[in-house]
């Protein structure tokens, strides 16, 4: 009798797992469906893409990817995205890492309020400063330049980068840096030879988050660029015009534009939580 009880417990558990699994997969596929559909559409001909009812089975074609540059200069926009995202991330890290280091290891009475204040700048809604920024950019000739957009991205992402680097540095035992100091390391040696190698995982996810946020940013890029410095977000927005009924091409461009970031996001999903929640959830 005892035996049969254990068996049934085991079986019901197995059944439970199965039900949960089927359910979870269904939900996940539903949520992922738009992305899947976009990828599928990118391999259709324009006619298949617009067919009624939508075609689940079709003869795949690569022509949309081959003609990626046809409707608009895709690589021009992609290059803008790369320059602006990487540019703002590099500059941001150069400013953020020293700040995070000093706040994590030389805490003063002001450190906490400085950190919170930095975060609060991130909470400023962009529309609140849209007008002056637009006018300033116009006066300084920064409208539709990669420099201008890089500056803005650096500023809007800086608080998150400082914050994230700060929380990672906080996890490094202070004693290790003190040991380095006892061993005769200068401040620069302490940072480059001890701190950075010890926190490279955390800093890598900080870099990834900054890249993701810059790449996908679509308020300032739509408002401050027209064509010369427009990144991919703006290129794709241009497909919304009525003449843009090129769904297959739209899908191909979108797939290409989203793929790298999607992969970055998958790689660093766990670590991103910290940056996305401003350190409130780890």
């Amino acid at each position, binding site marked *: 009798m005892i035996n049969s009880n254990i068996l049934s417990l085991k079986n019901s558990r197995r059944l439970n*797992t199965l039900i*949960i*699994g089927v359910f*979870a997969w269904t*939900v*996940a596929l539903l*949520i*992922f469906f*738009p*992305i899947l559909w976009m990828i599928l559409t990118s391999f259709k001909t324009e006619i298949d893409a617009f067919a*009624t*009812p*939508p075609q689940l089975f079709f003869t795949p074609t690569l022509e949309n990817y081959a003609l990626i540059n046809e409707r608009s200069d895709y690589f021009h926009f992609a290059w803008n995205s790369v320059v602006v995202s990487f540019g703002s991330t590099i500059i941001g890290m150069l400013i953020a890492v020293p*700040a995070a*280091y*000093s706040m994590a*290891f*030389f805490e*003063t009475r002001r450190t906490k309020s*400085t950190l919170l204040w930095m975060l609060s*700048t991130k*909470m*400023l*809604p*962009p*529309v*609140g400063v*849209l*007008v*002056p920024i*637009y*006018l*300033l950019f116009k006066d300084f000739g920064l409208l539709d330049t990669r420099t201008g957009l890089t500056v803005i991205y650096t500023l809007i992402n800086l*608080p998150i980068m400082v914050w994230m680097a700060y929380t990672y540095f906080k996890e490094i035992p202070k004693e290790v840096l003190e040991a380095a100091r006892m061993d005769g390391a200068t401040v620069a040696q302490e940072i480059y030879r001890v701190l950075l190698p010890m926190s490279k995982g955390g800093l890598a996810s900080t870099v990834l988050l900054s890249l*993701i946020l810059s790449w*996908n940013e*679509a*308020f300032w890029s*739509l*408002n401050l660029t027209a064509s010369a410095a427009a990144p991919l*977000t*703006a290129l*794709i*927005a241009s*497909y*919304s015009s009525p003449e843009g009924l090129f769904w297959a091409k739209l899908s191909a461009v*979108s797939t290409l*534009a*989203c793929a790298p970031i*999607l992969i*970055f*996001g*998958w790689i660093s*999903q*766990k670590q991103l*939580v910290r940056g*996305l929640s*401003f350190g*409130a*959830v780890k």
Partner: protein
Amino acid sequence: MSLSTVETLSSRTTGSQDASIVSIAKKNARVSRYMVSPSVLVLLLWMIVPLSMTIYFSLIRYNLLYPGENEFVGFENYEFFLTDEGFFAGMGNTLLLVGFTLLITVVLGVLISVLVNKAFWGRGIVRVMLISPFFIMPTVNALVWKNLLLHPVSGVFAAVWTFFGAEPIDWFTHYPLTAIIMIVSWQWLPFAILILMTALQSLDQEQQEAARLDGAGPWALFYHITLPHLARPIAVVVMIETIFLLSIFAEIFTTTGGGPGYETTNLAYLIYSQALLQFDVGLASAGGLIAVLLANIAAFFLVRMIGKNLTEA
């Protein structure tokens, strides 16, 4: 070297072989100040310059189409903005958009993250699929939904409706705000799932086992253990989403352009259209400040909570 350092040094140099080695602590304190200042400085500029300009613009008459007439008008711009029919529509739409998106993302977020917290086959892939929409750029998101999914003739939804014998819906004509809410929720649900899923992993296993030994069933477990544990992360999700949802722009810009009429115009889009489509800088600035005020209400609680977290750590 500051004067005070020189004084303390000279009073102590007796016997010190190397007077050039300044007290390491003082040196570190100074170095650390230099290291924080670039961040503080640029953020201070970023905050103060445009914000004070916004305040100034909001108090004068300033339209780019009529240059030179920039006299002080007091709170006239605020009056105009607040009494404009666009403001009521924009305010209402903002609240509906934020409210419904929060409701959908939090409720579904909790259910889905609890669901995938159990072990089953292929959980890693499921999780990756669940969080993916968050990494899709907003303009892609908007156009994929508008064209491939919600299109009244060739969209996937239309096909599903037809399959069940229903009349396909022209979402952007008849339910434009609902369509926007769907798009935005699809983007932000993964954010809620990501945060809540991570938070669930830190749920104390022993606590759950203790509750199970006390005879708690799955519902009691969820209600008395899981949900209280998620209270804080849910609050974080609500506040962060609020801050971002108040400024939703690209999704509206690429799909409806705020229309038809004011039906999908939120505050952010309203201010944008007043500034860059109607060139009324004064009016847009007044609106911008009102948006800042709203965001600050959410930010206030968030900062307080994170600050508390900081002291606990």
